[in-house]
């Protein structure tokens, strides 16, 4: 394995010795506990100091985009579940947001609110795990267990909502698969009540913990210019002072109606990325609470006249429109009117800007389903974050970037 032309500063400890003589190469991953998934790094080390790093990806490349050309718009949602597997709901929302942008479908108000709620719950569960992983890698195991317990509560909400705790496949073109039931609302309410206390506990465990602060403060610095130049987005960019948040900048779903703040920091180190994520969980909880209290009544899927969302069983059996609509949607090439056009639409996923570039070709399958993954630019930034730090900082930086291999490689 060769490092791509590394440039080293000339600081030989002895006159006449080349600095390269003191370097050694360490292979890190692709199967390593601190990468959490399948990332690989080739590190050039001078003693314990990292001189250069070459990240490598592709150890989980499964052809998601190719498979998107062979599945219909409704089927492909199952594959998006497996894309960023620590927040599948956000991927579901992103995919159908992009499809509906292409097809020009206007959602019902209730649906936009429901999607907002589940996307924010997904954000909370993502941040719990990513911050938990930072804690785990820097030695705070209890913090991780606290986070994972709350993730189980969110899993439970999702399971009540759609039957699957993990790979939810919840959204549909023009709607969602199941409407909120009173039990779901009750469970979310209970979560809103109990979660802040756990969040406080978690903050008390780690935010002012000397060991954790020493391990993360000033480590993995990313300046605002580097973040923009390197296409960073999401909490990574916001921790460096980029104020971009698609929820505010291009309000989609119900975000325009709701009151929340964009969390930013200016230091750009691992610690501020941790802080941004912690604060975003509180804002997300605020969003969930507001959206749940203002949840509009009425139909959740778009009207059956539009023939995009599958009608309910009740509609199929009791109305002629429902029967026709169901029949047409079940037949090949009778369903949606897909234009020969292409469009891009993105949402602010927990990890950053998650967008889909979809090319329509008249059929129900996308001609091209490009996913713009937030993790790729972040992982490409890794060498410049780690240069000059020690080997033990590698795991802290990796954890704070929250790179998900399935989304990275697709």
């Amino acid at each position, binding site marked *: 394995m060769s490092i791509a032309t590394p440039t080293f500063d000339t600081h030989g400890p002895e006159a006449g010795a080349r600095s390269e003589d003191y370097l050694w190469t360490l292979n890190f991953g*692709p*199967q390593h506990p601190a990468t959490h*998934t399948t990332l690989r790094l080739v590190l050039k080390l001078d003693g314990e100091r990292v001189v250069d790093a070459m990240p490598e990806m592709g150890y989980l490349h*499964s*052809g998601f985009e190719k498979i998107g050309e062979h599945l219909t718009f409704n089927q492909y949602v199952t594959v998006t579940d*497996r894309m960023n*597997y620590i927040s599948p709901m956000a991927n579901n929302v992103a995919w159908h947001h992009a499809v509906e942008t292409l097809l020009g479908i206007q959602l019902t108000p209730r649906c936009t609110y429901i999607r907002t709620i589940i996307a924010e719950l997904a954000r909370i569960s993502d941040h719990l795990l990513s911050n938990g992983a930072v804690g785990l890698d820097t030695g705070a195991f209890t913090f991780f267990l606290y986070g*994972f317990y709350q993730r*189980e509560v969110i899993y439970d909400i999702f399971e009540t909502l759609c039957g699957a705790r993990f*790979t939810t496949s919840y959204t549909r073109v023009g709607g969602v698969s199941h409407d909120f039931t009173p039990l779901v609302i009750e469970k979310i309410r209970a979560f809103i009540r109990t979660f802040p206390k756990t969040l406080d506990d978690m903050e008390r465990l780690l935010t002012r913990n000397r060991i954790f602060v020493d391990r993360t403060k000033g480590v993995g610095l990313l300046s605002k210019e580097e973040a923009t130049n390197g296409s960073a987005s999401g909490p990574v960019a916001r921790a460096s002072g980029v104020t971009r948040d698609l929820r505010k900048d291009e309000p989609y779903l119900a975000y325009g109606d709701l009151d929340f703040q964009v969390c930013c920091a200016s230091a750009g180190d691992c610690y501020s990325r941790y802080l941004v994520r912690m604060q975003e969980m509180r804002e997300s909880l605020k969003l969930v609470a507001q959206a749940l209290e203002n949840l509009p009544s009425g139909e959740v899927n778009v009207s059956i006249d539009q023939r995009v969302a599958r009608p309910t069983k009740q509609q199929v059996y009791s109305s002629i429109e429902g029967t026709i609509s169901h029949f047409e949607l079940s037949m090949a090439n009778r369903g949606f009117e897909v234009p020969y056009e292409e469009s891009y639409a993105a949402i602010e996923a927990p990890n950053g800007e998650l967008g889909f570039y979809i090319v329509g070709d008249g059929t129900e399958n996308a001609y091209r389903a490009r996913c713009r993954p937030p993790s790729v630019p972040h992982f490409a930034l890794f060498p410049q974050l780690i240069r000059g730090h020690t080997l033990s900082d590698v795991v802290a930086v990796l954890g704070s970037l929250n790179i998900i291999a399935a989304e990275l490689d697709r």
Partner: protein
Amino acid sequence: MAVMPSGSGGRIELPENVVVSRLDALANWCRKNSLWPMPFSTACCGIELMATGAAKHDLARFGAEVFRFSPRQCDLMIVAGRVVMKMLPVLQRIWQQMHEPKWCISMGACASTGGVFDTYAVVQGIDRFIPVDMYVPGCPPRPEQLIQAIIDLQDKIQREGTITGREFDTVGRQLRKRALVEITGHAAIDASRNPVLQRELAAAAEAITSRT
């Protein structure tokens, strides 16, 4: 464990605190209750694997919670998630680094069959390339399912295990799962530079002719 009643038939008198058993059974009993898993987690199933070890499901209750990330310390590999072309050589290498006796659980649909990913990059089931003892269905399986698989594996070890590892001689069982039949029919595969592949191809061709 088979215990011989003391004093029966005028044989050797044993004190009451001595239990007689087969050596195999003793070894199996030790092995099954000290499984050290090596989590080879690549994708979504890895998160469920983490959930299995975390607070709510608590794998420690079943004696297999000592996750070690060094293959040399482990005797159970849990392959959680899809394995793709670039990853398979890594998987094989890690499997070979583990010490005998060793077992493998293929967790989830992707590891077992390729799952929904019938694409150019995904290996359609790791059992084509490494031995597998236990398959867990589901996409991803719930933690309860994984726990059940581990309990079943413990059962299997207790029932089938031998101290010399005779139960691992399974050439015939492996042969019929080989992917090589699929390869032999295809001209795109160039085996000229791969001696291992050449050997495998010859063996597979021989197996096919001997069967017909």
